[in-house]
């Protein structure tokens, strides 16, 4: 290998902390956080007991009649895991949307995805349809997100091309329209229980999690992450713009379409089980870029891990801050997220003058 090549390899790994170490530390932090977060709750259970319950089940043991077993294994642990999965999914989707529309303040909800999901969910809640049993609400939410994205893509497409500015304009406009539809349905809801469900859903929550709701979002987030890593190199190119993409052999419009479909799948499945949890998708990708740079091959895995970490702890705060009452998690992500986002903006402003 030439001297120059050695230098290239070094400068690609130029971060002060080696990348594998960052990944390892974050991975370990997620695992530790999940275990620790499972140990924290309004009902006090000793750390040793929590660990032995988790080990018992992970070793293949069945449910036991003990109270602690019910709380730790059937209520808390699925909820913490759901938090990790939802956090990772939203953070990944945020990173992708930011690159697709080449706008660092974009989030997964920018293109009307969550508004679409809300309309689907609220329609089910107000009409009381339950054709698919417990799955009716998530399926409707997902269908709403998918329909919203289909409309946005259709309207944003111009001469076979999918350009960022048009996407943002159409997405934001449709999002507002759908938000209005949701508000209207909420105001007209005849049934008070329906209204409560709607509002709780709009704020987003991890409560009500159990093992049965974990499967679909976990599978989608893991598969989505893998698929995005396959496209990471081209995602880098996409950020440079349509002309540069063409020169580097990347069909920008088609890649955008593919990425938005995957984002729809990610956000749709995640929002369907957790409601509209905000800010995760906006800020986590920025933190990841600060840690390991803008290269998607490096920042996407870090984004997923940070998103998981962020939401697991935001949920712990939601459960514990005013214990024994619980706060909607959307409030916590905003409380933590907004100041943090401003800090990142400030830091970025200092690091690179002229870029937003």
């Amino acid at each position, binding site marked *: *290998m*030439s*001297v*120059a*090549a*050695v*230098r*290239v*390899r070094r*400068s*690609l790994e*130029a971060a002060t902390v080696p990348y594998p170490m960052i990944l390892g530390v974050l991975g370990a932090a997620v695992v530790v956080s999940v275990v620790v977060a499972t140990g924290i709750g309004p009902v006090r259970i000793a750390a040793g007991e929590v660990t032995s319950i988790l080990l018992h089940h992970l070793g293949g043991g069945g449910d036991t009649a003990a109270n602690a077993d019910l709380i730790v294994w059937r209520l808390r642990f699925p909820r913490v895991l759901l938090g990790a999965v939802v956090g990772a999914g939203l953070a990944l989707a945020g990173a992708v949307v930011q*690159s697709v529309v*080449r*706008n*660092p303040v974009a989030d997964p909800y920018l293109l009307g995805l969550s508004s679409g999901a809300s309309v689907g969910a609220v329609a089910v809640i107000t009409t009381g349809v339950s054709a698919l049993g417990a799955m009716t609400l998530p399926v409707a939410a997902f269908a709403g997100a998918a329909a919203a994205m289909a409309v946005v893509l259709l309207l944003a497409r111009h001469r076979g091309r999918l350009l960022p500015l048009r996407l943002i304009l159409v997405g934001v406009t449709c999002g507002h329209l759908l938000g209005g539809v949701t508000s209207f349905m909420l105001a007209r809801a005849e049934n008070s229980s329906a209204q409560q469900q709607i509002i709780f859903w709009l704020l987003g929550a991890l409560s009500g999690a159990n093992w049965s709701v974990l499967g679909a979002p976990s599978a989608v987030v893991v598969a989505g992450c893998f698929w995005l*890593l*396959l*496209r990471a*190199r*081209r995602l*880098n*190119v996409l*950020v*440079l*713009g*349509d*002309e*540069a993409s*063409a*020169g*580097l*052999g*990347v*069909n920008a419009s088609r890649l955008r379409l593919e990425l938005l479909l995957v984002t729809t799948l990610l956000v749709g499945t995640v929002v369907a089980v957790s409601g509209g949890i905000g800010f995760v998708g906006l800020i986590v990708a920025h933190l990841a*870029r600060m840690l390991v*740079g*803008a*290269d998607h091959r490096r920042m996407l895995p870090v984004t997923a891990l940070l998103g998981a970490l962020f939401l697991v702890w935001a949920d712990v705060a939601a459960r514990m801050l005013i214990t024994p009452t619980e706060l909607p998690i959307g409030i916590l992500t905003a409380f933590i997220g907004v100041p943090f986002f401003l800090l990142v903006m400030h830091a970025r402003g200092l*690091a*690179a003058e*002229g*870029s*937003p």
Partner: protein
Amino acid sequence: MTLNVERVSVALGGTTVLGQVSMTVPDGGFTALLGPNGSGKSTLLRTVYRARRPDSGRVLVDGTDIWAMPAAWAARRTGVLAQEHHSGFEFTVTETVTMGRTPHLKGLDRLSRKDHDVVGQALEQTGLTRFATRRVGELSGGERQRVLLARALAQQPRMLVLDEPTNHLDVRHQLEILELVRGLGVTVVAALHGLDLAARYADTVVVLQEGRIVADGSPSTVLTGDLVRDVFEVAAIVDKADDGLLRVTTRPLRSGRVR
């Protein structure tokens, strides 16, 4: 690598931007596209680097229609240096240049020793080695343009497409970039604003006016005072400088009026 443009037409919003344009760039040749703003230079180049599909006509690279091949296939053969707008994300110089390897890599491929070598060589050729870890956003305009050239070189192209590569650069950097490109020995097709630059570096010039080729040939036969006057609407004196190269001196047709 030989480039054949065959009767390429492009219309935008009902207006013909290119009408039945044909040209040939021989292997290793340097062809400069000249013409005033809006004459169709950039559009013609965009059909060559696969950014705009021609409404009719074909673009052939060594006899193969590039629009019938995958985008990556074309990008392994053709590198592009165009004006790029800065986006909000900050890649480092090495990261950006490494993106030139994209058409040669699949999904999860790791960079091979060869890829590292190619990137390192591109950095060296463009004199960017000492900037390797800097963010592109921190560099000057001339340095940034060199980064984009290095990225195009990392594609290991056999043809380079340059769309006004020297815009916004000072004289020294203009010459440096074109000197470098000329020295690579690959086929070059470049849209240039400076008639002097075209005369100095190109072996063929193609003059476009309102989407049609009005003249082509060697600089000394094409660049006459009459042609410059007709196409660019300026008065021009063309003569030979001391070094034997063409020199084009221009002044307004009528002074004191901006049309």
